[in-house]
């Protein structure tokens, strides 16, 4: 059976990982990190949007509509990155038995699903004027859609258990199964795509002006910090819900409100 946290703590006493694996120690730290991430996300988004809309030139081929790239590509990347992070924390939870790891996975999933929706909708709004259709079954859009299904399945599974501990481990297992499948699905879809309709040309892949790339990268970091902040906020709410009997929580919240 999984080790309990107190046993682990004795064994790895002094190690920072185990110290912050306890909700009591992580709760205040997460609060500070969260604030920092919100601030960074806001500043970076402001800078990125300014460069994207007022410095980056008009694209020679696509005109102005390419400016969707500044949110579409970061959202698509976050969809992928968050799934991998989710699977990583799920694996950590299953191997080490740390409750906080499972909670981290749960906290990431809704944000990942939202990023998938944003990537899909902006992708099709970009696609309509660029290649004349709202949807193409291209490998990247299709795998984003499948990732969205995987996020929804993960969340539905986690919610279907009354026993939270069971739900934690069950959904972690399905996150791992999904993570093993994601590359297989991606390459299968890619292969299928070239078979059926010749590879579609994605805009923005070549000859991007340096300022366009700069804006896109800054926006990517803004998205990154936003996602971390949202996940940490959700994590702290989850801790409040699960630790309602813990004395430390009462003390921490009291100290914070004074």
């Amino acid at each position, binding site marked *: 059976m999984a080790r309990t946290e107190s046993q682990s703590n004795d064994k790895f006493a002094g190690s920072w990982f185990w110290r912050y694996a306890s909700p009591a120690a992580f709760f205040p730290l997460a609060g500070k990190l969260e604030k920092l991430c919100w601030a960074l996300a806001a500043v970076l988004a402001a800078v990125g949007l300014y460069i994207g809309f007022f410095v980056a030139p008009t694209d020679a081929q696509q005109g102005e509509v390419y400016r969707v790239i500044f949110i579409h590509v970061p959202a698509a990347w976050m969809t992928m990155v968050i799934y991998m992070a989710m699977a990583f924390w799920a694996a950590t939870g299953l191997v080490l038995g740390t409750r906080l790891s499972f909670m981290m996975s749960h906290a990431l999933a809704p944000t990942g699903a939202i990023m998938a929706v944003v990537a899909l909708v902006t992708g099709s709004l970009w696609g309509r004027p660029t290649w004349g259709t709202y949807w193409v079954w291209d490998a990247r859009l299709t795998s984003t859609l*499948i990732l969205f299904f995987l996020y929804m399945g993960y969340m*539905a599974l986690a919610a*279907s258990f009354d026993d939270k501990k069971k739900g934690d*481990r069950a959904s972690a297992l399905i996150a791992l*199964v999904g993570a093993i*499948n994601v590359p297989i699905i991606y390459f*299968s879809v890619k*292969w299928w795509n070239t078979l059926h309709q010749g590879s579609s040309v994605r805009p923005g892949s070549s000859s991007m002006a340096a300022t366009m790339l700069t804006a896109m990268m800054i926006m990517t970091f803004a998205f990154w910090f936003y996602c971390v902040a949202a996940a940490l906020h959700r994590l702290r709410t989850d801790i409040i819900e699960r630790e309602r009997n813990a004395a430390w929580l009462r003390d921490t919240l009291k100290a914070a409100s004074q």
Partner: protein
Amino acid sequence: MSLRGATTAVIRRELQLFAQRKSDWANPLMFFLIVCSLFPFAVGSESEKLKLIGIGVIFVGALLAAMLSLPKLFDEDARDGSLELMLASPEPLAALILARVAALSLALGIALSAVTPVFALFYALPFDVAAMLSLNVLMAVPTLLLVGSIAAALLVSARGGAILTAVLVLPLTIPTLIFGAGAALKVLYGESPAAELALQAAFMLLALALCPLAAAAALKISTD
């Protein structure tokens, strides 16, 4: 009892049960038949049109039919207590699960792939395409059941388990669908389906190696 003895005993018991409870395999077959006969009503009956969608419809129909029998893997055993015995057995749980999936795959895979050529007639598909489709259904059913056994194990006797199983498992079967239907399409276009068949076999072997272990872990989690 040796491991081999235990697994063959499980397979034999399962197959005997299938022989007794005809609804276990007859209902998925009826479902398959009905799904396949619905599509022409929606798209029209011109044989050229049907030929184009037939492969996909039949393949998806077979996957959905196999999907329907996933709750059969563990639910009944959880109700009558034999799951407890399985968990307490000294034999490795993964091997016992593999034996059950193997029995279900044998019964269902053979049944579904045997009727596939008949449905291919509905869609005006030539005989060689029908044969290739049949072979691919035979390979896809075990892959789906292996992957599905993980979800079925997690959701043993959970409320709304059947629909959630489908939500969890169907996205993971996309590679199988791509290459299974792809092989039949290649035959339809007069090309060699060797690459698709090899990949299809590879997925089956990969699922065979990994899924029983994951399903055993899943069963331990859900019955904890």
